[in-house]
């Protein structure tokens, strides 16, 4: 607590080399903590969408059921792409801590590419389902499905845009406490989306294929 006052907005502390670069300003640790709290509220948002999905799952109103609809190959590739992107995003943070900008940018670009693969498959799945008549307007089940999975997809797309912007900043400014903090926050976001996807994979796709 002692340094809280200088903390706010900056402050001149000697840099402790054992502290990761993204924590080199008190203000950075404040922002990272703030982002964790935001993720807490985002988690509540997804919980409500999950709850609604579970309630709506059997309410197919004569339309396709989850078992008829879900395509194992598609969602498996999506899952692999997203889980792997979380790994490459971790590697980017690792290179950031080692001060290795180019390797870091490379891993971020790979993460973005994997994110795009994920989004590509998801959009394809949505378009195919919708054109085969399984639309959001078809049943309560499909309304909930598109909304839950689509909200996650929107989050991933935001993450891709955000990360792309950060790559430009890194190329221009290198690894500084500020750019490091930004990348660290986007990586927390990315891992969070990965964790949410594991729930979607389990609750929506695996369960939906079985039940």
């Amino acid at each position, binding site marked *: 607590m002692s340094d809280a006052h200088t903390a706010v907005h900056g*402050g001149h502390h000697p840099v402790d080399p054992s502290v990761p670069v993204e924590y080199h300003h008190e203000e950075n640790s404040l922002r990272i903590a703030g982002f964790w709290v*935001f993720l807490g509220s985002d988690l509540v948002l997804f919980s*409500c969408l999950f709850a609604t999905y579970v309630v709506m799952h059997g309410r197919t109103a004569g339309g396709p059921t989850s078992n008829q609809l879900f395509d194992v190959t598609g969602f498996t590739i999506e899952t692999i792409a997203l889980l792997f992107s979380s790994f490459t995003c971790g590697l980017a943070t690792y290179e950031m801590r080692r001060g290795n900008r180019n390797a870091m940018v490379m891993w971020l670009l790979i993460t973005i590419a994997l994110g795009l693969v994920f989004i590509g498959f998801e959009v394809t799945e949505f378009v195919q389902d919708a054109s085969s008549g399984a639309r959001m307007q078809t049943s309560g089940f499909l*309304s909930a499905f598109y909304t839950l999975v689509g909200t996650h997809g929107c989050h991933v797309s935001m993450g891709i845009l955000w990360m792309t912007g950060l790559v430009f900043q890194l190329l221009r400014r290198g690894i500084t406490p500020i750019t490091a903090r930004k990348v660290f926050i986007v990586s927390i976001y990315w891992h969070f989306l990965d964790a949410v996807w594991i729930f979607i994979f389990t609750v929506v796709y695996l369960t939906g294929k079985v039940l």
Partner: protein
Amino acid sequence: MLDEGPMIWTSDVLIVLATIGIIAVLSYFKLWKWLWDNWLTTVDHKKIGIMYLIAAILMLFRGGVDGLLMRAQLSWPGLHILNADHYDQIFTTHGTIMILFMAMPALIGFFNVAVPLQIGCRDVAFPYLNAISFWLFFVAAMLFNLSFVVGGSPDGGWTSYTPYVETMFDPGPGENYFLVALQITGIGTIATGVNFLLTILRMRAPGMTLMRMPMFTWSVFITSVIIVFAFPVLTVALALLLIDRDFGAHFFTVTAGGMPMQYVNLFWIWGHPEVYIVILPAFGIFSEVFSTFARKRLFGYSAMVVSMVSIAILSFVVWVHHFFTMGAGPGVNSFFGVSTMAIAVPTGVKLFNWLFTMHKGRIEYTSAMLWAVGFIPNFLIGGLTGVMLAVPPADYQYHNSYFLVAHFHYVLIAGTVFGVFAALYYWWPKMFGVLLNERLGRWHFWTFMIGFNICFFPMFFLGFMGMTRRVYTYQAGYGWGVINLIETFGALLMGVGFLFFVYNILWSARFGERDTTGDPWDARTLEWATTSPAPHYNFARIPEVKGRDAWWLMKKNGETINGPKGVPFEPIHMPNDSGRPIIMSVFFFIAGAGFVFEWWILAIIGLAGVLVTMALRSFEYDDHHYIPVEEIEKTEAAAGRL
């Protein structure tokens, strides 16, 4: 436009005239630049707090006029002052505005005004985000108010229950206004919650441990936690309903597998904690006022904290009491009945602590203290009738009757509105450097408080007599007429009270007593240690906190806020002002209008604008400056604090 009737025409004309008037005055006195530089782009929490309060007082007026129109319509059997459509729109906007666009912003205004000062820091954790929160609330309030003249207001009640508000039963943009405006202000509120949670956890002055924090700050902390976990539920409820309405999905329709009760569940999982979001900060305000004007430290400090934490937890497990009559069965209803009654225990603890704080105190009945003392018996009526409502079998009798209407007005007016008035009198000198007039303050208190009881107490009996809420008119012969007429006079008296308050503001601005000390009440907490109004940087030197009631201790030990003479100041790091929060919020408004009228080009332009402004912020690095030592010395010398 032409077939909308004289009421809308009059409103149209008034809005156009007011807008022209505001633009003309600002242009004539060449105030645009001043307004932009000093207010619209500010990230200073104190100014943002003041803007919240101005907006909230305007909304109190709007919501109050709605209330008076309803009371006029109901004042006698068989009246048709309003037509049924307008009546529905007015009770919907009255409820929505009072809770989301009056009570919340008023309290959040005080979060901003008082919390950073109370914990001895220079700003909130995220000042830029704070400005965004305010402007999101502001544009949402404008959008919501616009509904009355552009396309029609929502008319499904402030809870907007499905399936009644689905497009098939409630076409037109009215309901969309409700969904979109609440969504936009809700996003800002979540940001406020995150902001104040971090401000309080991470920015306290050295020595200010959690258990030394002023009780208002504690209440804001707990409220922020509730906001962070409750508001996303509202976000989901509103979004799903909007998806139903705008895109023809079937979440809550009865056809195609939708389930209306899912909306009701989601709404109240947010809605009940929301009750505590607007009551806990008021509890915090009363705690400050009681201990200041009883000249005693707050009795049972830790018990107060524990009570608030228990209320916060319990608030999330009681939501079903809003629909006991749905038929969930005795098991479910008993659980939610008992959990609801349990909230009375910590609330009772708090009431007794306030009474013990006053016990043997040297009580000074200032206007702020009058509101605090008046709160206790009135809130007690609201709370006890709440316990009556929490008994499921009895609720089958009270449900949706005027008994309920009376109950929640006793809770929300005696709790929140009295709290807001207490806080206005209490912190007014800190905000503006001038005291409100005490004599006018007493007139304000007595007219409003008596009017309030005349208006709402008879409603308990009307409820027993079978009058249900949301009725537009009723026949003679039920025996409701005279009671309703008396209530209408009570409502008018409350209006008179409000006018006393407005007159007080105007009178005090010209003739009010200036606060040159910074501490007009001889108060206990740190916001009174700095000048009134506080300088841009709050404290030239960050105070060292040695115990609870930090400023009281400092005064007792003969210390001053700037510490021993001769120690040089250091430059102060402050965030830069920015025009982007208001611009971003205008894009939110545009996107919102797109979703209201299902005009997708507008929605896309708005959302794209939001994304671009966010990206611009991400690329901004030069966002702070230092206040040089000379400037600090000059400011402090001018305040006589060197």
